[in-house]
């Protein structure tokens, strides 16, 4: 029942949503007031391949706690983000280390995401001008293509972003990140759309850097629960050890 009403209301809403509102919905799609999820991350680089399974808790955009479950060697490694600060707990040495701003641009857990990607609370609608540049059929599916141009003062490095979203259910299919020089720098693709906790979400997303196309980082959500109560004190340094 929830499903059909959802899709019905989605159809009705569509016509009344502005491009910005659509993008905001997409942006917030994996977030909620709070969430808990089970994610598998696969990273493939020229040199090695890795598979990491993690549990992620989040509260709004300010707080997040990520705990590694697999592989065994890294199980228990936990990352805490509160605001723009980040800490790592390393079980092997039983230490909590604050990640200084100089390491922020280092990749997070060896992936193609940076520490900064995780930490920043950017909201696309806050930093970008959004407009539809294409509306129609691509490969048999009705889609919107949005162009996101950063506001003159917005502290984002991208020159522009292109987002393709399915008309029917507002699911993103891909996002392209461009530098100011117009060159494509990285591409994110979305797939495996499933319902999780009452919402339709893409459970698989893959980030591919343009200069090394044989490499990628893929995130697969095995579980995702939204707006669930999270015990107080979860997002604190003491909880890192648990």
């Amino acid at each position, binding site marked *: 029942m929830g499903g059909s009403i959802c899709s019905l209301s989605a159809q009705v809403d569509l016509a009344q949503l502005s491009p910005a509102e659509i993008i905001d919905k997409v942006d917030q799609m994996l977030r909620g007031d709070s969430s808990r999820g089970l994610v598998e991350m696969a990273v493939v680089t020229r040199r090695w391949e890795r598979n990491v399974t993690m549990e992620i808790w989040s509260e709004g955009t300010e707080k997040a706690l990520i705990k590694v479950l697999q592989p065994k060697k890294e199980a228990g490694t936990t990352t805490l983000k509160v605001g723009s600060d980040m800490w790592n707990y390393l079980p092997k040495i039983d230490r909590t280390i604050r990640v200084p701003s100089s390491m922020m641009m280092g990749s997070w857990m*060896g992936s193609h995401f940076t520490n900064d990607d995780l930490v920043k609370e950017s909201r696309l609608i806050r930093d970008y001008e959004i407009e539809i540049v294409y509306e129609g059929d691509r490969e048999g599916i009705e889609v919107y293509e949005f162009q996101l141009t950063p506001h003159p003062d917005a502290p984002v490095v991208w020159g522009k972003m292109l987002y393709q979203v399915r008309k029917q259910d507002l699911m993103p299919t891909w996002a392209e990140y461009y530098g100011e020089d117009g060159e494509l720098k990285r591409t994110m693709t979305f797939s495996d759309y499933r319902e999780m906790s009452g919402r339709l979400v893409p459970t698989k997303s893959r980030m591919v850097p343009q200069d090394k196309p044989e490499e990628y980082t893929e995130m697969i959500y095995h579980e995702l629960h939204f707006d669930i109560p999270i015990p107080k004190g979860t997002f604190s340094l003491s909880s890192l050890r648990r």
Partner: protein
Amino acid sequence: MIAWRLGWRNLWRNSRRSLITISAVGCGYAILIVLIGLTVGMAGQMLKNGTGLLMGDLQLHHSDYLPERSLYDTIGSDSSSELEGVLHQLSLYPQLAGRSPRVYGFGLLSTGENSAGARLMGIDPQVESGVSSFLSGLQAGALDDSVERSLLLGDVLARELEASIGSQVAIVTQAADGSLGNDLFQVSGILHTGLSYLDRSLAVLYLKDLQELLALSPDEVHEIAVRIGDPMAADAFAAQLNASENWPANTVAQSWGELAPQLRDYVGLAQGMYGFIILIIGLFTAIGVLNTMMMAVFERSREIGLVAALGMRPLLIVSSILLESLFLGILGLIGGFGLGAWGMSYLTTQGLDLSRWMGEVSMLGTRMDPVLKASWGWDYVLWSALGLLSATLLAALFPAVKAARLNPVQALSAPVEG
């Protein structure tokens, strides 16, 4: 034949004057020898400082390693026997004086309250001191194999972390398998190199410990530093290695000159400038000798006039004077050489202590030794000898010719000397 005998005997007819002239040549030569020795010594020392602290005379890397210094471009990454092969190849050369494998990384060091980024360097301390001298900067302690995961910190870094001997330091780094390498280390020594960029960022550990931290195999290293007998032969040696048959294709040897062209430039600059000054001083010495010689010959116009009047041919006159000055020159050079050698024997062993002027001076990323030691620059010593000898001969030529052409009557009636 007569000219030779005449020349020689004329020398001793006025022994005082001759001795003065000889000493002019001699002292000038001695001073030049010492000056050349100091300059060559200084250049050599600069080189030793530049290569001796950390770099070594040559370095071996994977061909892709420089300039990015990627964690993954190791010697041994392509095949597990490669490291062994390279080390074996090196040992075949007699000029090898030492070789030291090294692993590098970059990580975050943390002691409870404080954390700081650091360069990680994994070494084998036993062979490392055969190649470089930075370990002699250990202020306290040392890498200790009785301690598990022993660590050395630069003194400024240690202060920043508020760590001392016995402190536990956590090191976190991006490992080669993509995971976050992390482990606890114990500080067992504090290092002071005098170079701020090292003292504030260097953390030294055992090779095998760093390999483990970085998830590298024990057959993988980033660099092999090599020391040979004569740094000046490094270029040739590197070329020889790279061209040799059994040398692995993806390993490249580079000399200090290729690795630090700045050092080569600076040595060149210093040599050039001092060489310039030496040239000027050499000219100056030659002029002094000229002066002395010319005076000596001019003073003897009367005598020359007399022998001319007695029938001596001009050619004979000129050649006997020239030969006389040749003898003077040679005697002077011999004496000067003796004096210079005596000076050098002191300067090559004790050297000049300039520590009054220097605190800890660094140049081009190396520390300067306050004691300047001389070393023999045989090429230059030889050239100076030839130069001075020619100056002596030239000096005598002009007045000799002039004197020989004098009308004997005029010469004889020349006024009283003085």
